[in-house]
């Protein structure tokens, strides 16, 4: 009997993605947190704030990624006070990388750092499991990302505008959700640019339908009659 899920660690099966465009960065994620087969949270927020201008997409162990992001937020805050100006995305990513690498035996978390700073504009850094750091124009992570490699190689273009970038992110996450059992729920996006940060939310009914997915249907009861009669005793 598979009751192991009760004590299984919370893992975010996840699809996370970060994309740069000509004015900043767009980060996107699904919202499913699972403990084994059970969905512990179907509306989780996997995009966490590190500073006003730098955000982090978390995947892998929920606990590990939360602890790492808490430490880095703390260090970054002190760094900003010392420096007297906003942190750069590169510094945030390097702090994440240090923790990931030095504790690689104990941690199991893949992270994508994205944000905007005045020197580099929008930038994305991928920090996968072992603690490598890689700067990229776009990055994908989590179990759902396996289904996106080919798609995003073809779909990402240099010099997209904000709307195109966000549409690409939503399309990617929804494609991954369609195929990956460990990803699901809603699509959350965060857009970061010189003007600030915008959070968006795309519920299931707003996402495009893919091959063999069924359209949303109201209950048969509502379909059968235009006016529903309440049940009488």
């Amino acid at each position: 009997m598979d009751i192991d899920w009760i004590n299984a660690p919370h893992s975010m099966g996840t699809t996370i993605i970060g994309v740069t465009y000509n004015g900043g960065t767009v980060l996107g994620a699904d919202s499913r947190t699972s403990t084994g087969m059970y969905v512990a949270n179907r509306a989780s927020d996997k995009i966490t704030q590190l500073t006003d201008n730098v955000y982090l997409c978390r995947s892998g162990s929920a606990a590990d990624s939360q602890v790492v992001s808490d430490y880095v937020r703390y260090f970054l805050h002190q760094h900003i006070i010392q420096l007297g100006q906003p942190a750069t995305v590169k510094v945030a990513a390097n702090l994440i990388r240090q923790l990931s690498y030095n504790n690689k035996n104990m941690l199991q978390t893949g992270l994508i750092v994205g944000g905007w700073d005045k020197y580099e504009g929008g930038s994305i850094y991928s920090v996968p499991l072992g603690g490598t750091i890689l700067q990229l124009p776009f990055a994908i992570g989590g179990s759902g990302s396996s289904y996106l490699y080919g798609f995003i190689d073809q779909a990402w273009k240099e010099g997209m505008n904000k709307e195109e970038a966000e549409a690409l992110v939503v399309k990617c996450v929804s494609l991954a959700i369609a195929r990956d059992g460990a990803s699901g729920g809603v699509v959350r996006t965060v857009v970061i640019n010189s003007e600030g940060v915008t959070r968006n939310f795309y519920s299931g009914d707003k996402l495009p339908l893919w091959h063999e997915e069924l359209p949303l249907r109201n209950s048969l009861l509502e379909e059968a009659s235009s006016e529903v009669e309440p049940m009488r005793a």
Partner: protein
Amino acid sequence: MLLEGSNRRIHAVHNHAGMAVAGLAADGRQIVARTKSEATSYENTYGEPIPIKELCERVASYVHLCTLYWWLRPFGSGVILGGYDRDGPQLYMIEPSGVAYRYFGTAIGKGRQAAKTEIEKLKLSEMTCREGVIEVAKIIYGVHDEAKDKAFELEMSWICDESKRRHQKVPADLLEEAKEAAKAAQEDMDAD
């Protein structure tokens, strides 16, 4: 008995920053060592070259530390730190008290009063780095008192777009040009 290059006053503390020392040589050496260490440790932690302002603050706080405890004596030397980071070229001076300011022109050492006066006559915002090298040489020669001071060697370094934003010794030909211009200016002054 002055061997050329035997008394280095200017040290590179990182690719993008250099430091000139005045005062007790051994104390200055210690400050430079600390500065180099701060610069490399910052880069190892944060993945980017240390902003010059941050480097200055770290060094100043270290120098200041030595004024806080009865069992430590203050550093017997001050330093001038010059560097080029993402916010452009910057110049800072750290005095033995631990006080540090950003400057556009400054001087330290025996002839500093006269040198500062000469610097104030310059129109810094309109000068290129090359021109600055010549002017600085003139000032150094200008404040050197032939009668009272010993023979000296001019040591110059720069950091600018022309040096690819890296701290390096002023190229030999430019240094010669600067020395010639300085000597000529001296003779003009003496001739009056």
